[in-house]
């Protein structure tokens, strides 16, 4: 299975959109980290679209969390754009990632993994 990690600038120079699709697993972790790092160091807003992800694992969740933490420190924002695909939802459940509150005090409200609950509720 192939994969796609595509970083696009939204045109304003301050917002990047990262499109992930296909197989995004530990094998792709190194490549994904470099892309995330570049994005968070250059723009204020990062929108991640995972709708096309077909297979994934814990490494993706860790990478997005770590990016989010870096963003919080720099006063930047990371958010998930679009739907959480089944593969991501499954890994969130398996890894015990679904939560009501953020894991660290600063991320209480903005945690990337709370959205799932909101989606379900509303």
């Amino acid at each position, binding site marked *: 299975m192939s994969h796609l990690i595509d970083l696009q600038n939204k045109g304003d120079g301050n917002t990047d959109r990262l499109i992930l699709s296909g197989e995004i697993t*530990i094998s792709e*972790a*190194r490549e*994904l*980290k470099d892309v*995330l*790092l570049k994005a*968070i160091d250059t723009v204020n807003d990062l929108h991640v679209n995972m709708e096309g992800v077909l297979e994934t*694992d*814990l*490494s993706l*969740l*860790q*990478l997005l*969390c*770590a*990016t989010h*933490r*870096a963003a919080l*420190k720099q006063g930047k924002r990371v958010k998930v754009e679009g739907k959480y695909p089944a593969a991501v939802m499954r*890994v969130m459940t*398996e*890894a*015990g*990632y679904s*939560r*009501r*509150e*953020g*894991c*660290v*005090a600063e991320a*209480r409200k903005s945690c990337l993994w709370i959205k799932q609950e909101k989606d379900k509720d509303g």
Partner: protein
Amino acid sequence: MEQDQGLERGKSVFFEEASELLSELEDSLLELEDAPDDQELIGSVFRAMHTIKGSGAMFGFDAVSSFTHEVETVFDLVRAGTIPVTKQLIDLTLAARDQIMAMLDAARSGKPVDDEIADGITSALRTLLPQAGVENETDPGHMAKVDEGVPESSTEEENSYRIRFRPELEIFSTGSNPLHLLNELSELGQCRIIAQTDALPTIHEMDPEACYVYWDIVLTTSKGINAIRDVFIFVEDTSELHIEVIDKPEATGGETETGYKKLGEILVERGDVRPEDLAKALESQKRIGEVLVEQELVNPAKIQSALEEQKYVRTVRKKRKAKGALSSIRVASPKLDQLVNLVGELVTVQARLSQVAVSRNDPQLIFLAEEVERLTGELRENTMSIRMLPIGTTFSKFRRLVRDLARDLGKEVTMTTEGAETELDKTVIEKLNDPLVHLIRNSIDHGIEPPDVREAAGKSREGTVHLSAVHSGAHVLIRISDDGAGIDPEVIRTKAMEKGLISPDMEMTDKEIFSILFTPGFSTAKTVSNVSGRGVGMDVVKTNIESLRGTIDLTSEKGKGTTVTLKLPLTLAIIEGLLARIGDEHYVLPLSTVEECIELASRDGDGAGRRRLANIRGEIIPYIHLREQFRIEGERPDIEQIVVTRVDGDRIGLVVDEVIGEQQTVIKTMGRLCNGLREISGATILGDGTVALILDVPNLIHGAVTG
């Protein structure tokens, strides 16, 4: 104070559980004797011991616990196939079972217990253990553990575990996927998994191929701790793995009113918060979780995880409680007795209501009274059915008796049962125990012959005692029959003559001769054996049965065996009665003894003495004139009525002024007031509020005949 009460309640539940377990244990052991290879039975013996040991220790009965441990150790080896099931093992285990029972009784009553017996059993059990050094060498690295699902450590009990799993950072590069392990874990039972991400750095410092996340898991499984460890078998050397039991089926939520440990307690147990920090945080009036987070003593995810554990265990406990409540609930018997009393009073009031309604001739009131009558009837039947227990529990107790008696007497006896599911009032069952023990002893001691004698007589070496119970209308028939030597009527006749109970020229049927057996002081045993014939004879059995308003009947065939039949009422609390009047007095005759009611047309039978004869459709029936018997003043009416009863197979009439009719009768015991009045078994309150005495017909007739 509250804690003390909780402990006391726990203790009393433990006593109840333990005695149930011990009686099951006895059954299992006896069955095991017949099927020594039955792994399920061996397992159930082991589990019973294991449970008693565990909960015994929990409630501070250390002696019970450590003694039980010895037996458990032996049965663990039996389970593993190291020690075979032998007669000696069964004997010892039964003795141990009795000892545990004695220790528990002693603990309950505060009396001392004989340690020597326990020591004796313990050292005898130890001789069964294999010599040290011959233990099987099992290779620890063998994979058998993984694929066999670890049956050896699985228990039927569902425990909840708190697991913290923290893999090494490099776990991905060994080809292991931690999520696979979590999935495998969740297949063991119900579980809640919470990721802890506080070790995760920012993307700048992160090694994208490392695993920074670790997990708190709460798992409920019946598979045991080894099954949990096996999930992590390939990574346990390189990971941090803590497994703790946090909830067992015995736990009912005593820790706090809300049913589980407090948040702070969980955090400290997990090592997420230091005890001194918790103590400091507790000084503040705010919610403990918020304080800890504010002071940065713990991150929110840890709090969330602990809260999840709290919520999880509470849910598990609630479900367990609900599940237990579905199948049955325990009610103290005094509560049940009180319910029966209340229903009894209701029945009485309802009877009065019906009477009033009829006398007022008010259709509306009559309709209501009829409705109340219907509902009361249903309520009464329902209440009575709650008191019903299957007689099988009593039957199974006798298996041990039969076994031990047979062994003591050198006989071979098996016990068979039939109709164990037959239900009887709890009080009746309780009071039935002694008579049944006596009858079974008689069967084995006097009835069943020694094996050689049986063989010579062309019978199987092994004798049979058969217990059966069957419903018959408002009665239950219980039969105790054996295929032993039977009773020789001549022997009884001779002995009865020796004792001057009968005269030599008396013509008697076999049935009449057998009835002599129930005469006080009559015993045929040639020698007084250890088992029966202690002078407490069949007459006591008869009295016991009659006090239950039952009857006893014996048939026997020489050389073939003996059958004793007990006929017992289903319940003692309410009877169907026949209401009769003499002068202003009312009496109730249990309908079970009544055959028919006829007008006593003439006084042709009148004569001296209390016992007279009436001619009923050509049959001459002796009768007792109750007005005379009870010395009731006043004129006899011109037309009296005779109630024909049957007692011990004989028809005897009782003459009253008037038969009023059948009615449901709630029995009130009379207490000391009527002690010594054998003719009266109790009293009841009639619809109009007056009291009627309930006649004990067999005693009444017996008294009239002999008196």
